[in-house]
């Protein structure tokens, strides 16, 4: 897994970050499609020409997950929630679903979710969130303000 030069191969990189990437993806697109998003993002990253030269692979993979999640239509989470609510117990996913939280988060855009997650789950300062998302610090703050506006009811 570790090559002779000490550089992690793709599989090792994947195993190192798969858990946290899946958590991040869960926050971005919900638990139902998180695994697909992580798989797509990793395939994209590993096949990128510049991948071998990437020094911060963790950050790169986080960006890849956000990029794939951006293409994932936001209404998919709402649809999945509706399906879940009408699903028979046998067909329901095994993991516990927090409908209260997902119901609140479905009102946010993927970018707003990313700003919330990186700020409150990853505990990153606004500058680091901005760098991670590839946007300005002001944009991060705007995302957070708008997210809080959408979450007003939940927060109260």
């Amino acid at each position, binding site marked *: 897994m570790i090559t002779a030069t000490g550089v992690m191969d793709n*599989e090792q990189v*994947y195993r190192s970050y*798969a*858990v946290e*990437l*899946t*958590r991040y993806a*869960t*926050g971005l697109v*919900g*638990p139902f*499609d*998180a*695994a*697909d*998003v*992580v*798989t*797509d993002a*990793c*395939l*994209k990253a*590993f*096949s*990128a*020409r510049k991948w071998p030269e990437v020094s911060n692979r963790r950050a790169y993979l986080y960006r890849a997950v956000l990029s*794939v999640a*951006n*293409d*994932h*239509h*936001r*209404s998919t989470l709402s649809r999945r929630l509706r399906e879940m609510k009408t699903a028979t117990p046998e067909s329901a*996913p095994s*993991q*516990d679903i*927090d409908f209260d*939280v*997902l119901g609140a*988060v479905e009102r946010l*855009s993927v*970018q707003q979710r990313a700003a*919330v*997650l990186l*700020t*409150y*789950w990853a505990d990153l300062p606004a500058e680091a969130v901005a760098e991670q998302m*590839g*946007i*300005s610090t*002001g*944009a991060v703050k*705007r*995302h957070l303000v*708008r997210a*809080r*506006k959408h*979450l007003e009811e*939940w*927060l109260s």
Partner: protein
Amino acid sequence: MSRSDDRKMKELADRLVAMSPEPPPYPEEVSVTHREDSKPRPVLVFAGAALVVLLLAAIPIFLSRGGGEVDPVASSTTSTVPTTVTTQPQASTTVTTEQPATTTTVPATTTTTAPVVETEEAVLYAVQTPENSFTGNPALVALRGVVLPGGETLHSGWEGLYALTMEGLFLPDGFANMVPSAVDILGVTADDHTVTVDMNDAFLAGSGSGLLGDFTMLNQLIYTTTVQGGFESVLFTVNGAPVTAFGSEGLDLSEPQGRDAYLDQLNSVNVDSPIQGIGDESLRVAGFANVFEATVSLEVVDASGNVVQEDFATATCGTGCWGAYEFEVDYSFVGDETIRVFWHSAEDGSPSDVVSIPVLWDDPDGWDFTSHPGTP
């Protein structure tokens, strides 16, 4: 924001992440994936109305062989009979670009129901002449819409590229296509990073409108081809041979062309994200720009011409270099608004190089690229 709100936000983030499933297994096979949608979308191929009629006529025969397991077609339900037409795989290269089996699904309806003409989603880059342009260079704008199926397997997965060479391509007002309709795609293959597009002889003549038109045509083709799958460059060939003399000035295209090849022949502000949305979503407007102090401005203009919202964003680079910019616009769109993206002139503050894009709202299909009167 209160500390209580902060605590609640953290609780929300933690509870959200707590629902995380097990990580997926390591993706052993690194293959090139197509990005347009995360969900797999069957590629539909119609060889024209005659084929549809033939397939519809074949349904009763098919059903009668099924031993009555399928409900009678007289039913008005939406049950379908999958009729699979598997096409020859494309001339393959070293990669594992997955070509889904081409499938035509014919609705099993009564003969009183008109056959549903399936369409395919396409993302293409169209051209706009910006207002108050500094350079006179055209802007590239991504548009998402639908086209009728190409009818040839080589177009599968490259609908946007196909659409650019389609006769009768319909674009919204204010947008143009610099690819002459005489240009045809003979084949498309891909490896990990490069897409090879084989064209007919008409490609060699270029846009027919001078060097800037040729650059614009190439930009449209390169950006449209690389909009999906993480591809980085495009190699153009004509009848399988390298192109050493293209367009009015005989440009050498024998090497793969990346997205940065002709950047400086573009407007200083370009838009990468199709301007459409649904419901109460915010609207994402993203693109690339090379503007003074990297400051890109945006306006939402309503149907009466009033500016109802303004915003600005900082691109990742500016004043002499190209950077990515992004807006998230929170506004109650109804679909008759226009988004204007520009930069403020350093001399007099006036909006410069303005790109104007009509907003499509609650219209998931996007533009109908084939609705031009007289389209075959």
